[in-house]
Structures are given as structure tokens and as C-alpha cells.
């Protein structure tokens, strides 16, 4: 409702110098900041130096911006960039939408709710390796279950992972399958946090189920939406594990994203180059995500 005073706020009057301690003390940051700063930020920023070197892990030679030049010369960089953005947009978009819908369903009074929640969350638990293998099997062009099922309807299923035009989307779908449970639980947490008074008010105001959703659930689950969008979008821009497990960026280079290109560089032992790639990817993600977060956090529903 109203803003509590903050530490060190400039006071127009002199008087006693007693510093008013905020009820939200800075030292709450301390444990997290210490761990995060020492174990993540410090090494990460230290490693930025290596993006300017040719680095074998054993020794490094300073080569200026050559790595960046090399990175931008990667033959499939543009395609990778397009793939990256497409992949992130598709996966995060679908996760947001499906996660929201599933969460709505799973917070409503529905038969078998506990079961459904578990089932939806289940894929999150299964290791990426297992998911990758399972879906390469399901998506097998000639013996895969999916195409077998389509064949029942007389449709000749495509080569999901073999067709270079489809591979990325197929992987994206599997990513959604695997990740939607996570989005769903976050949304569930968001939806249960909405006081039911507002629904009651809306029902009295004459809202249909849809309007209820549109005007109450959607705006008031903004914390969840913001979280899901940010997490899944960044995740989408950065993932390679599922791509790696399912197509290795293939067929050929068809499903390569920037992250998988970087990963391959890393795997190939091009440590400096991949660090440079990470810097580039970081900047790219930053350009996309920082405005997005600012937008999402700008006007929070509550407060």
C-alpha cells in the first residue's frame, strides 16, 4: 500500500543523525551475494578475459578480438541466430500459453487433479538423455509411433528430425513437452496466490469464465507470467542440451542455434572462441531480455 521508509533516505531536516534502519535490511542480500558473487560472478567475469585469448585451458595467448571476428565468421551464424530466436520464441510462447492453460485446468475443481498435476510435471523430472532418446524413437520417420498414428488417418508423417525444415520445430515441441510442467507449477503458484475476492467481485460484475480469466486471472497472475516468460525465454535462447541430445544441431546444421554452436566450439576445445561466443550470446540475450524484464516488472498488479 504505502512505501515504508528506506535507509539513508535524504532527510530535509537536520536533527539527530540516527540512521533509520529499513525493515528490509541490506544484509539479507549478504549470504546470497557472497555465494553468488564468489562462485559465479567472479569466475565468470574473470573468464571474460579468456574471450580475448586463444585458450587451451592449459595456456592462453592474447589475441585481441580475433575470437570475436572468428565467431562472426561462423558459417551458419545467421541461420543459427534466426534459429535461436525462433526456438526461444516458440518454446517460451508455447510454455506461457500452455502452462497458463494447464495451470487453470489444474487449479480448477477437476476430476483427477492430483494425478494430472503429477503427469504434467513428470517430464520435467526425466533426464534430458531419456527424453531425447524417447522422442527420437517416437519421431522416427518410418517406425515412429507418431507417424504410425498419423498413418492411421492416412497421413504420411514427415521426417520430424530428419527433415531440415522441421528438425528445429520438432525439438522445440519436445522442449515444450519437457518444460511445460515447470511453467505450469509456476503458474499454479501464481494462480493460487490470487485472492478469491477478486473472482467473486468479477462474478458479481457479470464476468463470464473467459472474462474472468482475461480481466482477473491474467493480470493478477502477472508475477507468474513474468517469471515464466523470463525464465523460458532466456532458457530458450540458451538451450542446447535437448538439441544436442536429439539432433546435435542437425541434420547438417539445420537445427543449430547460437548456443549449440558455442557448445560445439567448446566441445571442440576452442575455449577462447566459445567464451567469446558466450559473450556475444550474453549481449544478445541482454538486448532482448533486459527491456523485456523492465517491461514485465514495470507495473506490477499489486502494491
Amino acid at each position, binding site marked *: *500500500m*504505502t512505501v515504508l521508509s528506506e535507509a539513508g533516505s535524504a532527510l530535509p531536516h537536520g536533527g539527530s543523525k540516527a540512521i533509520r534502519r529499513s*525493515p*528490509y535490511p541490506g544484509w*539479507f*542480500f549478504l549470504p*546470497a551475494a557472497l*555465494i*553468488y558473487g564468489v*562462485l*559465479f*560472478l*567472479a*569466475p*565468470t567475469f*574473470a573468464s571474460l578475459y*579468456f574471450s580475448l585469448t586463444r585458450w587451451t585451458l592449459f595456456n592462453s595467448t592474447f589475441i585481441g578480438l580475433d575470437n570475436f571476428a572468428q565467431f562472426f565468421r561462423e558459417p551458419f551464424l545467421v541461420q543459427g541466430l534466426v534459429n535461436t530466436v525462433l526456438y526461444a520464441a516458440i518454446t517460451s510462447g508455447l510454455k506461457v500459453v500452455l502452462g497458463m492453460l494447464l495451470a487453470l485446468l489444474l487449479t480448477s*475443481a*477437476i*476430476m*483427477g*487433479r*492430483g494425478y494430472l498435476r*503429477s*503427469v504434467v*510435471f*513428470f517430464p*520435467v*523430472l526425466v*533426464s534430458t*538423455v*531419456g*527424453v531425447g*532418446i*524417447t522422442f527420437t*524413437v517416437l519421431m522416427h520417420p518410418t517406425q515412429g*509411433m507418431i507417424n504410425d498414428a498419423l498413418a492411421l488417418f492416412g497421413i504420411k508423417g514427415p521426417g520430424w528430425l530428419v527433415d531440415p525444415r522441421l528438425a528445429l520445430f520438432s525439438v522445440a515441441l519436445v522442449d515444450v*513437452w519437457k518444460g511445460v510442467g515447470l511453467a505450469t*507449477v*509456476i503458474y*499454479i*503458484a501464481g494462480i*493460487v*496466490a490470487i485472492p*478469491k475476492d477478486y473472482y467473486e467481485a468479477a462474478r458479481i460484475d457479470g464476468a463470464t469464465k473467459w472474462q474472468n480469466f482475461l480481466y482477473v486471472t491474467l493480470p493478477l497472475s502477472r*508475477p*507468474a507470467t*513474468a*517469471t515464466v516468460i*523470463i*525464465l523460458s525465454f*532466456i532458457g530458450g535462447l540458451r538451450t542446447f542440451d535437448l538439441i544436442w541430445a536429439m539432433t546435435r544441431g542437425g541434420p547438417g546444421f539445420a537445427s543449430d542455434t547460437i548456443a549449440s554452436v558455442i557448445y560445439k566450439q567448446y566441445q571442440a576445445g576452442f575455449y577462447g572462441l566459445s*567464451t567469446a561466443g*558466450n559473450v556475444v550470446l*550474453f549481449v544478445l540475450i*541482454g538486448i532482448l531480455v*533486459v527491456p523485456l*524484464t523492465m517491461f514485465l516488472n514495470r507495473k*506490477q498488479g*499489486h502494491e
Partner: protein
Amino acid sequence: MKSRPSIVLGIIAILVSALVFLVPFAFIILTAFKNKQQATLLDFSWPDGFHLWSNIVEVVTTRNWMLLTAFINSTILTVASVTLLVVFAAMVGFVLARRKTRWNGLIEFLILAGLMIPPAVVPTIWLLQGVGLFGKLHGLVLIEVAYGLPFSIILYRAFIATIPRELDEAAIIDGARPFDVFFRIILPLLWPVTVTNIVVQSVGVFNDFTNPLYYLPGNANATVQLTLYNFQSQFNTSYNLLFTNILLITIPPLLVFLFFNRHIVAGMTAGAVKG
């Protein structure tokens, strides 16, 4: 009006979920039932015989019961790091959401950075060695905490706004120190979010593979994901055992989820404030 469970919708949902979510799962189970030869075919055929038990025995006993060691290690790792993670992240999220200062932007950016940049393994190992934490379980715990913080903080930060600030104020007036406000008021009310955090992070840490691999070498320190490599190599994989193993290591997180899922309940803040 009626709060009777919707049966029709329920049945449809159950059927669809069975198709979408359980078919792949069925594949994993079926494969776990097969022998190596049949499993290699990687298809949906019915198992030729019941090999689940022998698979389980083999998976569990492989390499001196490595799976059991791994279970113990992973459990300790998960419990310790998730506990710290939840508390520390909630503390940061709390202050970050409640207190507006000009540093917030920077702090949030640094947190986001944790999601945007992959950790730098080698410098981190140097650092861990420097402080004597390399190859130690508690070192890995701290690593998991560090890597998990951004996610948890973002989640908490977003959700703290759903708790009316009046409750903080009431507690402050009641004489609560920041610590009390946080642990007695905020954290309990964020329980659904905490549950989400616990579930997600436990799964993440439990299933983590890269970090134990690099930061905690050694057989005695194996974690569950590493056990998958017992049955999988670059050129040769025992799919029956691999999938049995996958099945076995999926169960604990599933139990965690089932346990906590019931705690995600609505109406935590009902009745708190008027207006």
C-alpha cells in the same frame, strides 16, 4: 457455483494427458522391462519377457552398488543446497521486491546474468581449489546454490508482491525485527512459491550432471545422473539398463513432487486485509 469436480473435463484431460504425457513414459517403462537385445531396437514392442527385476538388480549392483552411493550423495546434495537456496533466495527476493533503491536495477541485472551466461568451469575450479572446496560435497552444495540462485530469486521477487505490505507493517508494529518479518510472515505466506522452488530446484540439483562431473570427481562422490553413464558410452548403450536407471532415479523427485504438490493450496492470504 457448484464446486463439484468437473467430471467430463476431467475425463478428457486424463485421456489427453495419457496420450501426450504417458505414451513417452510408457516407452521408458517398456524399455526398462526388456532385455538388452530387444531394447536396442528402441521400439514400442511388447517386452519378450519380464526383465525388469534383473535389470533393476543389475543397475543397482553395477560398480559396487554405485547407484546407492549416488542416491545418498544426490540426496544430501539436494537437501542441503535446496534448503540454502530457498532461504537465501527468498531473503534476496524479499528485500529486492520491497525496497526500492537505485541499486535494484544493477542487482537484478546481475541476477539475470546468472541465467544468461553459462558458468566458467575452469576458473571456478581454480577458485574452489584456492579456498579448499574443490572435490568436497559442501563445495558442490555452494556451487549448486550459486547457480540456482537467479532462478529462485526471480521467482520469489515476482511473488512477494502478492503479499500485502500491510502485513509487514503490522508485524513491524508488533515489534518484529526484519528477521521475524521474513521468517514468520513472508516465508510462510509464500509457501506455494517455496514449494515450487523446492520442487524445481530439487529436480534440477538431483538431476544435475555437469557440475558434479566437474566439481566433485571421484567414484565415492558420484551422483545419480552420473550413473547413467554406466550404461551409455559413445558407441554402445544398454538401453534396457539405461532406461531402468532413468526410471529409478526419476522416482525420488517424483515422490518429492507428489509430497509437496498437496501443499500448493489457494487462499494463503485470504482474510488478511480489508480493501
